[in-house]
């Protein structure tokens, strides 16, 4: 999976490749499913980042940041394979602006994070997870605002289905802790995370569309 194009997908998304490289990568994407999946995930994260409002962070951000730091310091985060780090490093270009905004935007966060970020790689993955969590959080809030239009039965179904997807994500994470180099698990985790975002977007769209 870690072919020569893997670390250039972010440039591709940002339209920073020269024309020849862009064409070559487009041809490569036709035959490389792994690259397509990574590209989709980067796109999803970028899309989520774009959809976030350009506003000062709310007070409620801090518990998430603290929880993310706590997860790192407690050692519960799994070790990342080169493959995952390569994929994660791609995300940073897309989400760096947002993560800087989140982390630098509050003095107390900056103070708290200093001893918790031993390497750039860990910080990168943390920022990606944080961005993903924020996107999910925003969508959950939007769905919650529209719950009156969806009805209790639908909310129950959606809640149960989100729990089902979360269980799949958790299974993949735990398995990846045991087997960090497992390409299938990396793809599986990415797919389930994308599925959760897609479901939340769908429910949000429904809530807006119906009376």
């Amino acid at each position, binding site marked *: 999976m870690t072919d020569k194009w893997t670390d250039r997908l972010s440039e591709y998304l940002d339209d920073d490749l020269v024309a020849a490289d862009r064409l070559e990568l487009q041809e490569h994407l036709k035959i490389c499913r792994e690259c397509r999946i990574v590209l989709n995930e980067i796109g999803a994260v970028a899309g989520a980042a774009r959809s976030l409002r350009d506003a000062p962070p709310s007070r409620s951000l801090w518990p998430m940041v603290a929880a993310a730091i706590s997860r790192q310091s407690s050692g519960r985060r799994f070790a990342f394979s080169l493959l995952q780090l390569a994929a994660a490093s791609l995300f940073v270009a897309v989400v760096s602006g947002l993560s800087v905004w989140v982390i630098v935007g509050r003095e107390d966060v900056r103070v708290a994070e200093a001893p918790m970020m031993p390497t750039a790689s860990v910080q990168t993955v943390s920022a990606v997870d944080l961005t993903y969590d924020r996107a999910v959080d925003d969508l959950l809030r939007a769905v919650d605002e529209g719950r009156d239009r969806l009805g209790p039965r639908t909310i129950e179904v959606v809640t*149960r289905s989100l729990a089902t997807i979360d269980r799949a994500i958790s299974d993949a994470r735990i398995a990846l802790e045991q087997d960090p180099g497992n390409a299938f698990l990396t793809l599986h985790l990415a797919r389930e995370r994308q599925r959760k975002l897609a*479901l939340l977007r769908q429910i949000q769209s*429904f809530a807006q569309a119906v*009376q």
Partner: protein
Amino acid sequence: MTVVSSMVIVSVLLSEPSMSPQAPAQRPSIGSRAETDQTVPVQKGARVDVDDCLGEVLVRTWERDAVRVRARHTSRTRVRIDTVGQVLRLDTDADRGVGVADFELTVPPWINLRIVGRTCVVDVENVSGTISAETVEGDVTLRGVSGTVDVKSVEGEVALEGGRGRVQLSTVEGAIRIAKSAGEIVAESVEGDITLSDSQAVAVELSTVEGDISYTGSLLASGRYLFTTHEGDVLLVIPENTSATVGVRSFENVRIDSTLPFKPGNASGRRGQRAVYSLGGGAAQVEIETFEGAVRVRRPGETQKD
């Protein structure tokens, strides 16, 4: 885009007298039922939008370039039929509460459809245009459709029979049943099962988290098939003379439980690696990915479980 109000006037001007008319202005007494019946000419490329549907939408075809809208509803529900450019828009409202109506639409086969609703049962037959349907609770049934189809439902079941175009179906809880369909099929559910029977599809992607996947039919030599689940099982029922290469990725087990004579390829047994099996000449390309589900392959007519 033309202003709605002006197009309402156009709509009224273009409308034919209803075939069994009942003037909307004549409000029946409380508790009684009312019926709207109006026929509107449409041009090639037109689309019918049913917004905020609460009730049933039944769509059938005829050879006229016109859309007949018949709606049965309570006396307190008003049915609005507006034309905006190439879009014929149908919706309902009511003095108090929401408008509930059952629509029966007769349309030219080429019409494009977009139907959105909370509790909305959709039934469409023999339409070749683009179909988009989104429901929260209602079931969606499509028969003999040949254009691009995009259906999303939360709780409803989705059924497609005889589809021939590019099809995308998704549910959260409901099952997806596809029969006798060709073309390209993408189906996704979180908890519902996905069943594809008598398939002649050339490209298939079926994906669930918890539901089972069942595929019955031919694997075309030029076909590409992808089945992914987290916990669900995958069952393929394919003819003995099938020519296919099957790649399996799983966290738990990359073994295929098959009564057909698959030849193991590079199956290393290491978790996470892709095991490859072949049948016949290995023409069709099949990929199966499951976290902990079982993979079974059977001949037609065999007991599916063991």
